[in-house]
């Protein structure tokens, strides 16, 4: 980017920072600063780049899974669930009150064929959470055993599913990511959301 002589620009166009600590940012960047960042940004080393894939990692049963962060609306403590007469099934468990609105409460364990924990007592687990995901305006809430947070990967580092991985879960995975010495299954969001949509028909 060419170095600009900012004094030619009308100061009236800008509302500069009022707080004295922020006035530092009203100064122009130095050429060395720009060149350093230009070099850093173009670095082709995959290990040094933060990655183009942002995912939230969570645990269902013994399986560590991930979905792109863009689909997550909220992570919160588990709430009581209300069954829907004549509508609840193995995947659609009922409805739950989230921020004053009732949302569909589903079991991703059942959708993916993951074994349910031996007990559903909240005190059994270190972190007992439910997660809200949303796509095209429809929100789905499901319980999880643990939430590990948001992480970034290079999508080019996605590994293929191992040949010895069978069952419903394997068909819902795009591939595997390595995190903290573990393999995390990256879920195919299209298959997950379409599976959930079929459960309410």
């Amino acid at each position, binding site marked *: *980017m060419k*170095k*600009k002589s*900012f004094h030619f*620009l009308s100061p009236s*166009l*800008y*509302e500069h*920072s009022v707080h004295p600590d*922020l006035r*530092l*940012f*009203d*100064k*122009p*960047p130095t050429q060395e*600063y*720009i*060149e350093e*960042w*230009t070099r850093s*940004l*173009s*670095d*082709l080393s*995959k290990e040094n*780049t*933060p990655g*183009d*894939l*942002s995912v939230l990692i969570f645990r269902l049963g013994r399986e560590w899974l991930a979905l*792109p*962060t*863009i689909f997550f609306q909220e992570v919160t403590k588990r709430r009581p669930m209300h069954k829907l007469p004549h509508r609840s099934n193995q995947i659609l468990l009922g409805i739950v009150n989230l921020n004053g609105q009732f949302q569909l409460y589903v079991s991703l364990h059942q959708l993916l064929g993951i074994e349910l924990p031996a007990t559903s007592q909240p005190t059994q687990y270190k972190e007992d959470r439910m997660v809200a995901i949303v796509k095209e305006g429809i929100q789905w809430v499901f319980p999880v055993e643990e939430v590990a947070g948001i992480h970034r990967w290079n*999508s080019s580092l996605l590994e293929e599913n191992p040949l010895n991985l069978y069952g419903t879960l394997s068909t819902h995975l795009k591939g595997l990511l390595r995190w903290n010495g573990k393999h995390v299954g990256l879920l195919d*969001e299209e298959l997950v959301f379409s599976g959930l949509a079929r459960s309410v028909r």
Partner: protein
Amino acid sequence: MLLLRIHVGKKGYAIDCRHIVRILPQVNVQKAKHVPYYVVGLMNVSGILVPLIDFCQLIDNRETGFFLHSRIILLQDRPNSPQIGLLAERVMETFEKDMKSMTSNEVESTHLPFLHKCEDDKQEEIEYLNVSQLFTFLLADNLLT
């Protein structure tokens, strides 16, 4: 919903953080020919050329000010989709606001269909930048394939 507040002069705009890949200081770009007037050039992001849009040029028909608070926001419509860089002024803070109140208003101007008038967390006027609609706008201008 977490939103990033950016500015063109004194006017504020809000971007849904779920579409933000990264926020960067200004960098050198490669000039490109036959591109729309609001395109500064092409940035090298890990070996991939990403177009850099001057948001002040698009909104106010002037170049973005050369300050440390003028930053580049790397945006993505969907996971694994092409990225663009958006250069704007006073890119320095985020705020929380519920989605319905940000997107319920009608389009403000027909030539910039991705902007929607609304209020920020302090009930002050701000415009919500719909990233998906911005990408559609850029696609129509033959900037993206």
